[in-house]
C-alpha cells in the first residue's frame, strides 16, 4: 500500500519499536502482568482468542457428549451413574436420624436429566461465550484498529475492562457448570427456568453469566462504533473501509441496541428466580410469552451479531485470495447495515407456535425481508470469483466451504420463515440443523478461515498449508455428515432436545454422531497445526497473501503502535487490478496489462 512519508512527530509515531509480542526483557511474572494490564488492542485480541477457543473446547466437548448420547440412548441406570460422576448428584443433606445422605435433586428416573444439562452447557457456552465474542472480540479487536490505520481502539481501557467482564461472566458459567449445571436450555424459557431445581443458585449463576457477558458485548460494540467514526486513517472515507470493518460496524450497532434488552430480561429473570416477582411467571399473572418476546428481541439480532462478522471475513478472504475487486462493494456494505436493521423486526419467527395469528403473519412477512440482503451478499461473493486469480489455500477453502454451507443454511431458513412449514419444523431437528449450518457452517467456518488468513499477521509465523487443507476437508466432510442428516431427522418428525427417541430415527442419529467424530478430528488437526506453527512455524513475511488492506502494510506481527508512520490511504481496499500489494513484487503479483 502506498504510504506517504510524513514527519515522525506529527502523531508521535516513528520511534523504533519491536513486535507487540516482545516481552521486552520482562520476566515471567512481568510478562503476565504486562498482558493482564495491557491496553493494547492486539494483546486484548489475542487474550480474547485464547479465552473464546477455551470456551469453544468446553462447548465442543459438550456437543460431542450430546451426539454420543444420541448414538444409543443411555439406559436409566447408566444415566444415573454418569450423572453421579459428572454432576456429583446433588448436595449432602442431613436426615432426621442424623446421617448425611445425598440429596436426590439430580438423580432422576429418566436419562433426560444428564442430557439436559449437557445440551444446556453446549448451547449456553457456544452462544454466549464462544460465537458472540469469537469474531468481533477476538479477530475484530486485533484487526479493526489496524485496518483503519489507527493506533488503538477509541477507549483502550474500556476494551481491557470488557475482556475482564467477559472472563468474569465466563467464570460464572463455568462455576454453574461445576456446581452441577443447569437444565434450562440456553434460552431459559419461563416458567421452566423458574421452577426447575430447588437449588436455584445454579440457574441464577448461569443467567448471571449471560447477563454479565452482555456488558462485555455492549462495551466492545460501543468501542468499535466510536473507533470507526473517529479513528479512520487520513484518506479513508466510509467507502474505503474494508468490508470486514463494515460488517463489524453493523454488528456493533446490533450489540449496542439489542444487548441491553437481554440485560433487563435476564435481570428480571434473576429477580423472578430469587424473589418470584411474577413478571414472567404465569402463576402470578405474568406471561411466559412476554419473556419470549424479550428474549428474542435480543437473541434474534444476536444471530446477526454472530453471522455478520463471519460475512465480513468472507468478503476479505474471497477478494484477497482471488485477487479481485469484491463485486458490488456498496451492495455488500449496505446489505450489512440492511441485515442489522431488519434483524430488529423479525424476532417473532422464533415463536410462531406461541404467538397470535396476526402477529405470526406479520412476523412471517417481515422475516422474508432478511433473505434479500443475505442473498445479495451470496450473489456478490460468487460473482467476485469471476475472472479472478484464485489461490486454493486453507483460508480460501474455508471461504468456499462457507459459501456452500451458508447457502444451505440460508435456504433452509425459507421453510422456517413460511408459517405452514414452520408449524411442522419448529423445535425439530430441522431447526437444529438449520442454525448449525448458519452458526457453525457460517460463523465458525469463517472464524477458522479468518484465523488461518490472519494467523501469520497475528503471530508472525506460517502454518503448514497441507495440514491446514486436510483439516479443512475433515471439518467440511464431518460437518455435512453431522448436520445434513439432521435436516432429514427434522422433517421426519424428530423433536429437538430429546435424550432418547423412537426407533426409526436411530440410523440417521448414528450417522450424525459419526460425523461429529470426523468434525472433532478436523478441529484437532487445526489445533495441532496452529500449535506447531507457534513453536516451529517458518517466519511469516509481512504480506503473505498479497492483501491490500492496511494490516498487510505493517510487519508480522505488528509493532506495538501498529505502524511506523501513520498510514495515508490512497486507494481502495480491493484495487488489486491497479496496485501491487505492499511488501510484494510485481513478479509475484502481476497487474493486468491494461493498467501496468
Amino acid at each position, binding site marked *: 500500500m502506498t504510504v506517504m512519508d510524513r514527519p515522525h512527530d506529527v*502523531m*508521535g509515531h516513528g520511534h523504533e519499536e519491536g513486535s507487540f509480542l516482545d516481552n521486552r526483557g520482562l520476566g515471567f511474572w512481568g510478562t503476565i502482568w504486562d498482558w493482564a494490564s495491557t491496553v493494547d488492542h492486539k494483546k486484548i485480541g489475542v487474550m480474547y482468542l485464547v479465552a473464546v477457543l477455551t470456551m469453544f473446547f468446553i462447548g465442543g466437548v459438550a456437543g460431542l457428549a450430546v451426539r454420543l448420547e444420541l448414538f444409543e440412548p443411555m439406559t436409566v441406570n447408566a444415566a444415573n451413574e454418569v450423572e453421579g460422576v459428572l454432576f456429583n448428584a446433588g448436595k449432602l443433606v442431613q436426615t432426621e436420624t442424623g446421617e448425611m445422605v445425598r440429596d436426590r435433586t439430580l438423580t432422576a428416573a429418566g436419562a433426560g436429566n444428564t442430557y439436559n444439562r449437557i445440551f444446556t452447557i453446549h448451547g449456553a457456552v457456544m452462544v454466549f461465550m464462544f460465537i458472540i465474542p469469537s469474531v468481533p472480540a477476538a479477530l475484530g479487536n486485533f484487526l479493526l484498529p489496524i485496518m483503519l490505520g*489507527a*493506533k*488503538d481502539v*477509541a*477507549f*483502550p481501557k*474500556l476494551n481491557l475492562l470488557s475482556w475482564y467482564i467477559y472472563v468474569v461472566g465466563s467464570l460464572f458459567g463455568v462455576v454453574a457448570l461445576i456446581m452441577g449445571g443447569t437444565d434450562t436450555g440456553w434460552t431459559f424459557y419461563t416458567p421452566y427456568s423458574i421452577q426447575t431445581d430447588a437449588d436455584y443458585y445454579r440457574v441464577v449463576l448461569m443467567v448471571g453469566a449471560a447477563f454479565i457477558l452482555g456488558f462485555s458485548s*455492549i462495551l466492545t460494540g*460501543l*468501542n468499535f*462504533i*466510536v473507533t470507526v*467514526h*473517529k*479513528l479512520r486513517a487520513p484518506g479513508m472515507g466510509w467507502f474505503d473501509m474494508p468490508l470486514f470493518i463494515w460488517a463489524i460496524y453493523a454488528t456493533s450497532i446490533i450489540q*449496542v*441496541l*439489542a*444487548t*441491553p*434488552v437481554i*440485560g*433487563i*430480561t435476564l*435481570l*428480571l429473570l434473576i*429477580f*423472578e428466580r430469587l*424473589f*418470584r*416477582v*411474577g*413478571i414472567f*411467571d404465569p402463576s*402470578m*399473572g*405474568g*406471561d411466559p410469552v*412476554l419473556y419470549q*418476546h*424479550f428474549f428474542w428481541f435480543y437473541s434474534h439480532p444476536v444471530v446477526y451479531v454472530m453471522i455478520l462478522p463471519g460475512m465480513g471475513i468472507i468478503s476479505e478472504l474471497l477478494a484477497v485470495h482471488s485477487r479481485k475487486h469484491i463485486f458490488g462493494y456498496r451492495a455488500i456494505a449496505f446489505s450489512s447495515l440492511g441485515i442489522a436493521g431488519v434483524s430488529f423486526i423479525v424476532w417473532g419467527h422464533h415463536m410462531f407456535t406461541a404467538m397470535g395469528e396476526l402477529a405470526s403473519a406479520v412476523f412471517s412477512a417481515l422475516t422474508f425481508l432478511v433473505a434479500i440482503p443475505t442473498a445479495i451478499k451470496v450473489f456478490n461473493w460468487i460473482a467476485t470469483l469471476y475472472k479472478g486469480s484464485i489461490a486454493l489455500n486453507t483460508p480460501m477453502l474455508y471461504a468456499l466451504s462457507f459459501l456452500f454451507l451458508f447457502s444451505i443454511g440460508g435456504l433452509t431458513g425459507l421453510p422456517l420463515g413460511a408459517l405452514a412449514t414452520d408449524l411442522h419444523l419448529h423445535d425439530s431437528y430441522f431447526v437444529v440443523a438449520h442454525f448449525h449450518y448458519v452458526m457453525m457452517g457460517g460463523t465458525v467456518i469463517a472464524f477458522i478461515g479468518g484465523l488461518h488468513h490472519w494467523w501469520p499477521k497475528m503471530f508472525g509465523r506460517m502454518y503448514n498449508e497441507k495440514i491446514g487443507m486436510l483439516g479443512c476437508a475433515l471439518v467440511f466432510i464431518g460437518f455435512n455428515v453431522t448436520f445434513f442428516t439432521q435436516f432429514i431427522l427434522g422433517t421426519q418428525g424428530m423433536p429437538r432436545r430429546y435424550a432418547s427417541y423412537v426407533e426409526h430415527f436411530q440410523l440417521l442419529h448414528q450417522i450424525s454422531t459419526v460425523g461429529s467424530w470426523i468434525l472433532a478430528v478436523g478441529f484437532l488437526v487445526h489445533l495441532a497445526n496452529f500449535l506447531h506453527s507457534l513453536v516451529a512455524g517458518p517466519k511469516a513475511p509481512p504480506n503473505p497473501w498479497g492483501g491490500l488492506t492496511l494490516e498487510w502494510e505493517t510487519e508480522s506481527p505488528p509493532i506495538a503502535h501498529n505502524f511506523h508512520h501513520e498510514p495515508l490511504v490512497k486507494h481502495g481496499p480491493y484495487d488489486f487490478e491497479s496496485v501491487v500489494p505492499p511488501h510484494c513484487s510485481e513478479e509475484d503479483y502481476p497487474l493486468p496489462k491494461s493498467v501496468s
Partner: protein
Amino acid sequence: MTTIQTKSGRKQARWENYQHEAHWRSAADEFDAAKLGMWLFLTTEVLLFAGIFCAYAMFRMLYPEAFAIGSGYLDVKFGLLNTVVLLISSFTVAMAVRCAQKNQQFWLRTNLYITLVCAGLFLLIKFLFEYTPKWSGYFFFLDPTLGHYEKSGQTALWGMFHFVEGYGGKRPGAFFDYPFAQHYAEPLWWAVYYGGTAIHALHVVIGAGLLTWVLVRSYKGIYGPKNYTMVETSGLYWHLVDLVWIFLFPLLYLIH
C-alpha cells in the same frame, strides 16, 4: 494541588496542561469520541429501561384495573416532589458543565454539591416515604401523610417508624402480603413498580457516584475550559436518569 509548576516557572492550572491520550489526533477528537461513546452508552440505558416500560405497557393492556388500582396506592405528592428534585439537579448539572467551560471552579463545585444533595434527597424520599411504608407498613415519623392513618402503637428504630396496621405488604410477586387488594394482578403491578423504580434508583446511585468522582477530581483543578469531558459525560448520564424519571412519573403516578 490544583496547579503545577511549568518549566518557565509560571503556575498553571492542571486543566491548562491537559494532554490528550496518544492514540488520538487531537483533544477535540478525543472529546467528540468520548461524547459519542457516552451517547451510545445512553442508548443502551434507554433500551434497558425499554424492558421495564414494555412490561408496564403489556400488563397494563392485560390488567388495566389492577394497574389503575395500583396507581391509586401511590401518592402523587411524593412523585411530584421527586420530579422537582430531579429536574433541579438536572439543571445544576447543566450549569456545572457551563461553569467548567468558563473556568468558574467555585460554582462548578457548588453546582455539583447541589446535584448530589438532590440525588440524596431523591433517594431519601423514595426509601423513607415510599418504599418503607408500602413494603412494611412502617411510616417515618416525619412523613406528612402519617396523620391520615391510625397508628397501631408499634414502633421501630427508637420510635422513628410507626406501624400502621393493614397498610404494608404491598410487595411484588411472592412477597405480596396486602390483605385489601382488589385485583389478582396487583402483585404484578408492584413488581413493575418496584422493578422500574428500583432500577432507576440504582441509576441514581451510579450517577451520583460518577458526579462525586468528578467533584473530588475538580478539587485538583483537573476540569476547566480545555478539559471538561468527564463533567459533560457524567452530566449526560445524570440527565438520562432524569429523562427516565420524566416518563416513570406519569406512567406510575398519573396514568390510572
